[in-house]
């Protein structure tokens, strides 16, 4: 955690953490109006990192991340062009996985383009080329959807732009199909929270 410079700043950060845990967007909005937005963004992301680590370690339920994401939505979206796109892979018509992944990316303040569901590899690549994206987040439902990931990689190689972006896969559990671990992706996980945290850390690096 970032150490506080003065008791007042420490109190604001404590209030922010409490509001994120309780899912209180209005409280967060009030804190933002009180000033020091940059410090609050840093404090928010530091705390979200801690929450995500605890969730991935199994000591925090997902509902707490949901609540934190809702409260964090009080932070204004960054005035930046998208750096990532997110969509459910071709064949995956279920919106839930995509919805949660977008929620977690937005929680971190990552400017992300929503591509929807059942997204073809061509549509993913088209978004990368048009917007010069640095991250593609592909949401799977079953291991069978992984063909879309391989195709995105192949198309990007053919266009000579594969090195320009990171390909992140989340959704279907690698334990269901070990072949997922050999996907030509930069990060593979079955948990959207891990994918969003990875994108955030890579973006900030």
């Amino acid at each position: 955690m970032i150490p506080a410079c003065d008791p007042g700043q420490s109190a604001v950060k404590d209030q922010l953490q409490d509001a994120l845990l309780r899912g209180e967007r209005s409280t967060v909005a009030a804190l933002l109006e009180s000033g020091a937005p940059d410090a609050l963004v840093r404090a928010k992301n530091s705390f979200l990192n801690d929450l995500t680590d605890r969730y991935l370690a199994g000591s925090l339920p997902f509902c707490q991340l949901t609540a934190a994401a809702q409260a964090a939505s009080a932070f204004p979206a960054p005035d930046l062009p998208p750096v990532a796109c997110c969509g459910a892979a071709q064949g995956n018509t279920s919106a839930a996985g995509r919805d949660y992944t977008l929620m977690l990316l937005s929680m971190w303040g990552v400017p992300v383009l929503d591509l929807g569901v059942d997204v073809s590899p061509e549509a993913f690549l088209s978004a990368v080329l048009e917007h010069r994206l640095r991250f593609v987040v592909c949401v799977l439902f079953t291991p069978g959807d992984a063909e879309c990931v391989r195709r995105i990689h192949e198309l990007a190689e053919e266009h000579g732009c594969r090195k320009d972006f990171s390909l992140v896969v989340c959704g279907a559990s690698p334990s269901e199909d070990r072949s997922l671990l050999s996907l030509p992706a930069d990060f593979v996980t079955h948990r959207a929270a891990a994918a969003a945290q990875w994108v955030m850390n890579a973006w900030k690096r």
Partner: protein
Amino acid sequence: MEKITVYSGDCFPLRPDREEVFRWLQCSAEQPCYGAFAAVWDRAVALLSETAEPRAAALREAEDRLSILLTLGQRPEEAATRLFYKQDYITGSILNVLCDELLFQMDGLAFELLKRDLARERLSVSAREEPGIDYPIEDQQSCLAQLRPVFPGVSISEHGIISPAKSMMYRVMLSHRDCGHVSLHDCSVCPQTDCLYRHVK
């Protein structure tokens, strides 16, 4: 039973169970976010009532098997996605789980209706086959094609993803003996004491 039997929404009254849904969400009273979830529960239930169109169908594939389709329609998932777009994540996540809970309730109710209808032919359910385990995708697709006149908007992808998402499908095998390894069959009240599956369950 007819070739296709449709069970309308009247057969599936909504019975949202807040404690069960919160248990699925792991949102206990000890969690700091419990208050935020409890505050929007009624709204989520209202949205479910407004958008869910619970219906079921049984397709008599053959003398000894039936395929069952249960669906809430497309609108609940669309409503949940709209909530996520508005960053009302808590209500959206409750609605998602409410839909799943309703589907499970429908499963139990549909099974009772099925048993009632089968009893008229002195038939019982002897086994249940599940997608992804022993109910092939090709068979599901074939059944959905036959159900299209009454359920036009339901499909299964080549990877087994059903659409609308808040739907489920399974197959039951029929028998003139009420027995087998069906999870809903209670061996303790079954007269077939020499049944192979009695000790397996």
